[in-house]
């Protein structure tokens, strides 16, 4: 099979992402996967044919996410594999191929998580969203009974690290993902080659852990683009309950339950046929562009009235000016957008929660040189723009969270914590709180620096 030419796109944070474009159909379709392996995918027996099938009705855009396959492998601390950095990978590739809007096909848990984050955050770039064999979270919880336990997951990841790219691991995967092919030597061989092509055992363990620690549940209602959830009814790897959960919690999502137990995505034509049918039904006007997922950051100078009276009018004015200068410098560094300053506080938005938290930490640290302290709150939720102004319950919530933070503390909502897996940020439980003007009780976390 002809291997398409590989190109590189450069992300906003300076990582090179390998991509390929196949087909020239009327709609752009981006395949977002946890592990694609552009170098190997065309050698597989079925995967190449599957990709060409998708490309028969689309312009198919393929990429290896950062740290994997043909993309850059050496990443610095702030370029790590978070949902938002992988969203940047997709955006950079779409920019490079002049794709204004695309339908995102998210394969399995990790691929779908990135596609979902992209669709919710950047609805103006998203025509539609498709999930295959995906889930909102991998782990079991009282209110998420179909997940696996932490212990099961740890054992599985230890196995991945120990037996990566061996016939042993590949055979056990084939047995699980495509049972009827268990005696097929070529199947195992292809899987071993694919594993080897995408990364080493330590990489694989890290990717697995990052995907495992993601929880999309709080953000699913913020997905406002046409969505199709495709899931096999007897899927052995990811039980159908995961797919049903997604379809029930994404507004207006359609669920396509396909027959069979094979999780492997390149077996059977019913999956690509569903994709083809769905992309033909998407119409631009269905999308609401004034509602989107964003992260809000609020900061506030601690004890500002006493600081102001101690420093006098002129001293206070100079201090506020220097404070604003420091905050704005950090907003620029972490790509935040200043929305408002209310006297001595800042309100800014970000399209990635981890960057908002890092910005908050940097602000807390750098204003100490002025002998003052700030408190900061971060929340991720659905925002609305009304006459160009950002509003919505997420904004109120962010302000309330900041109000509860102690001096020099960064307090975040549970949603933030659930979406920053892979960032290396650490959190400590700060209890459940009622927040004025916002319904429900909210679990908050303190960032441990």
């Amino acid at each position, binding site marked *: 099979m002809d291997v398409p030419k590989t190109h590189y796109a450069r992300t906003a944070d300076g990582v090179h992402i390998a991509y390929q474009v196949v087909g020239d159909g009327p709609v752009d379709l981006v395949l977002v996967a946890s592990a694609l392996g552009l170098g190997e995918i065309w050698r597989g027996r079925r995967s190449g044919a599957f990709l060409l099938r998708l490309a028969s009705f689309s312009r198919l855009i393929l990429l290896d996410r950062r740290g994997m396959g043909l993309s850059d492998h050496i990443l610095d601390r702030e370029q790590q594999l978070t949902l938002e950095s992988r969203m940047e990978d997709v955006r950079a590739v779409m920019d490079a191929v002049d794709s204004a809007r695309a339908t995102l096909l998210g394969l399995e848990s990790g691929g779908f998580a990135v596609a979902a984050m992209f669709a919710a955050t950047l609805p103006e770039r998203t025509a539609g969203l498709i999930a295959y064999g995906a889930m909102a979270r991998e782990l079991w919880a009282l209110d998420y009974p179909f997940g696996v336990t932490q212990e099961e997951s740890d054992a599985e990841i230890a196995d991945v*690290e120990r037996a*990566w*790219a061996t016939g042993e691991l590949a055979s056990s995967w084939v047995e699980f993902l495509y049972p009827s092919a268990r005696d097929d030597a070529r199947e195992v061989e292809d899987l071993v*080659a694919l594993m*080897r*092509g995408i990364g*080493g*055992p*330590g*990489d694989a363990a890290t990717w697995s852990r990052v995907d495992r620690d993601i929880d999309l549940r709080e953000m699913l209602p913020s997905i406002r683009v046409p969505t199709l959830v495709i899931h096999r009814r007897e899927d052995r790897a990811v039980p159908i309950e995961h797919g049903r959960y997604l379809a029930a919690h994404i507004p207006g999502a359609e669920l396509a339950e396909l027959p069979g137990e094979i999780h492997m995505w390149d077996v059977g034509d019913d999956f690509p046929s569903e994709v083809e049918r769905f992309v033909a039904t998407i119409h631009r006007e269905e999308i609401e562009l004034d509602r989107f997922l964003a992260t809000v950051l609020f900061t506030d100078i601690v004890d500002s009235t006493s600081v102001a009276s101690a420093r006098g009018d002129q001293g206070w004015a100079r201090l506020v000016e220097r404070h604003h200068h420091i905050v704005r410098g950090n907003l620029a560094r972490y790509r935040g957008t200043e929305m408002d300053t209310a006297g001595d506080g800042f309100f800014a938005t970000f399209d990635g929660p981890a960057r908002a938290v890092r910005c908050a930490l940097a602000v807390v640290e750098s204003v100490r040189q002025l002998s003052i302290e700030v408190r900061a709150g971060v929340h991720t939720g659905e925002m609305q723009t009304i006459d160009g102004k950002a509003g919505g319950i997420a904004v109120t919530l962010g302000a309330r969270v900041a109000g509860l933070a102690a001096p020099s503390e960064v307090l975040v909502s549970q949603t933030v914590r659930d979406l920053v897996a892979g960032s290396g940020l650490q959190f400590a439980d700060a209890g459940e709180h009622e927040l004025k003007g916002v319904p429900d009780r909210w679990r908050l976390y303190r960032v441990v620096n």
Partner: protein
Amino acid sequence: MIEIPEPTYATAADGVSLAYQVFGHGRHDIVYLPGNATQLDVM
């Protein structure tokens, strides 16, 4: 046609996985350390 050995992985003291291949049965061990750019699957 040369028989290509399967790459295997060793773990360094700091936890990094390193892919390696072993060829031959001679009396001396030679560790081949080429320049910066290697890809065992393509060499």
